[in-house]
């Protein structure tokens, strides 16, 4: 087939999705370039399906809003506002006003400033903890699924044990022993949330490794490393991605809970620590709703946004759900 001909131009786009007739495929370059073209095309297909998912789009827009708040925090609210001694502070415990849209806390700090800056820490902890969790979960899932036999039984037994141990008590014990710091919180959430990921990934690896192209590659003499990183991993990656986004939601909720229980880093302000301070200062009894509602609502919106994005992606990428 010469360039310019469209005959036989086959895509494996899902039914109902029409790709725009782009430029005709060029003469193949290197295998790697072909692989990247294929990946780009499939990413575009996912995006076309994703755009049609209303809930997923609402989640994505909310997420972009919060990421923007985190990135541009210094422009939205000056950092000095976090200091208890800042001359910019108002009267302690004052309800919302023009100068302080969310009112002030016990030091007279603007709750608006605290909430804006809390976005940074909450998102940071959520993302880093998820990265740890995904790394452990994916490696264990792939090794168990690929090698089978005794590595699988050992790793899956370990996974089952971690699944059974109640999450919050385990996280509390770990955080209490290791001390109060941001790194500890990230580590604790990371090492307690991986088991469900490991199980999902293992199930997918079991299905992928029996496919003909893996067998072919093995017949051509590929090493285990090549097989897992070049053939298995790219094919379980979409599922890892969807699962990652759902795990971020759990990590952010966990961070807020641990911080609320007084295990957070007292020096870095997250939504959880704001709630911890507010509750500790008796905001609930005194009816200081402006101090309690903004950080809590921020958690609800971010967790909802991640969950909606995750569900939407899962629906598109998860082969089990797609069949329905």
């Amino acid at each position, binding site marked *: 087939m010469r360039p310019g001909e469209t005959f036989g131009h086959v895509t494996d786009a899902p039914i109902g999705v029409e790709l725009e007739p782009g430029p005709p495929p060029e003469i193949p370059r290197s295998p790697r370039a072909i692989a990247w073209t294929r990946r780009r095309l499939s990413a575009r297909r996912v995006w076309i399906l994703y755009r049609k998912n209303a809930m997923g789009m609402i989640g994505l827009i909310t997420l972009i809003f919060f990421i923007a708040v985190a990135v541009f925090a210094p422009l939205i609210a000056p950092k000095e506002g976090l200091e208890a001694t800042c001359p910019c502070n108002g009267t302690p415990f004052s309800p919302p006003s023009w100068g302080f849209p969310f009112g002030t806390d016990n030091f007279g700090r603007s709750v608006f400033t605290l909430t804006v800056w809390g976005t940074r820490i909450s998102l940071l902890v959520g993302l880093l903890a998820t990265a740890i969790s995904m790394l452990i979960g994916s490696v264990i899932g792939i090794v168990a699924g690929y090698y089978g036999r005794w590595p699988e039984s050992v790793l899956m037994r370990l996974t089952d044990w971690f699944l059974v141990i*109640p999450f*919050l*008590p385990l996280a*509390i014990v770990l955080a209490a*022993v290791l001390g109060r710091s941001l790194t500890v919180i990230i580590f604790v959430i990371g090492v307690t949330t991986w088991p469900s990921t490991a199980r999902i990934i293992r199930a997918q690896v079991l299905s992928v490794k029996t496919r003909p192209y893996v067998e072919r590659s093995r017949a051509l003499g590929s090493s285990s490393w090549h097989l897992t990183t070049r053939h298995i991993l790219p094919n379980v990656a979409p599922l890892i991605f969807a699962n990652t986004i759902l795990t971020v939601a759990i990590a952010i909720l966990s961070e807020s*809970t641990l911080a609320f*229980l007084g295990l957070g880093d007292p020096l870095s302000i997250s939504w959880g620590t704001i*709630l911890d301070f507010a509750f500790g200062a008796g905001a609930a009894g005194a009816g200081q709703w402006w101090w309690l509602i903004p950080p809590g609502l921020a958690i609800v919106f971010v*967790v909802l946004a991640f969950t909606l994005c995750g569900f939407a992606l899962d629906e598109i990428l998860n082969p089990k759900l797609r069949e329905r």
Partner: protein
Amino acid sequence: MGTRRYILGKVAQAVLTLAFVMVFNFFLFRVLPGDPAALLLRGTTAFNPENLEEVRSDLGLDKPLPQQFLTYVTDTARFEFGESFYLRGATVSEVIGDRIWPTILLLGTSTIASAIIGLIIGIYGGWRHGSKFDVGSLSFTLFVYAMPEFWFGILVLMAFAGGVGPFPAIFPTGGYETPGADLSGWAHVTDILNHLFLPWMVLTIAYLGQYALIMRNSVIDVMNDDFVQTARAKGVREKQVLRHHVVPNALLPTMTLILLSLGFIFGGAITIEYVFSYPGLGLLTVQAIDAKDFPLLQGLFLLFSAAVIIANLIADVLYSYLDPRVRAA
């Protein structure tokens, strides 16, 4: 495979898991950086070299590791977890024994209530999936899932115990009963219930969503089964199909999943008991964190884990009785 063998296998698995938790618990306080004795004394006024030595020999930390492990195992088997640092003079098991009943009352009643309400919502949502009711209950479930329970608890506390704007402060702000009030009989019972109501309501609402979701999906699965179609073809009324064919079969997996959710419920109990200063194991955990009371934390962690493992075992065994196919598989 026979029932006996199936159950024995499950029991062996549970024992193994419990052993893993115990080993984990043992090393958690010994392998981690730093001296456990220093860890116990950290931040207290008693932090000096003499006390350090004393604590070390008290805890048996000067002995070799295998011997320490043996002592730990035998002590645990006798429910001896050492002395609480927070409440001096009381052993960990005594402290836990004092606090366990409020937690059982709170978790028991709220789990039963949220399971019943959740199942009913799930049955109707699944039976008419796609309806306004279904979409509404799903959105509610999603919203509650995204909400930290403790935050919901704080708002409820502020509204109904603190009193804000139009909300009346009609409930006590916390505790198990009115302190100092020497009540007896019926007055005592209503006093306890009055204190129980707000945390009970928060936990019930926080968990009914997940039960509704599990039941809904289970109902939808069963509705697609052939026997439901057969029942309809025979001319059985829709109401009868739901009551006699769909619900009993959909209940099976749900009942066990409710038992399995105990791990999550403990998490909720910790934060909600703290918010309502309800003197159960959850509040005790928070107090142990604040006081750096490691023996107490260790005991609580072991207790929570053991409870979840036993609940898992009960779920497995119960399921094998309710659904004989599991044993055969």
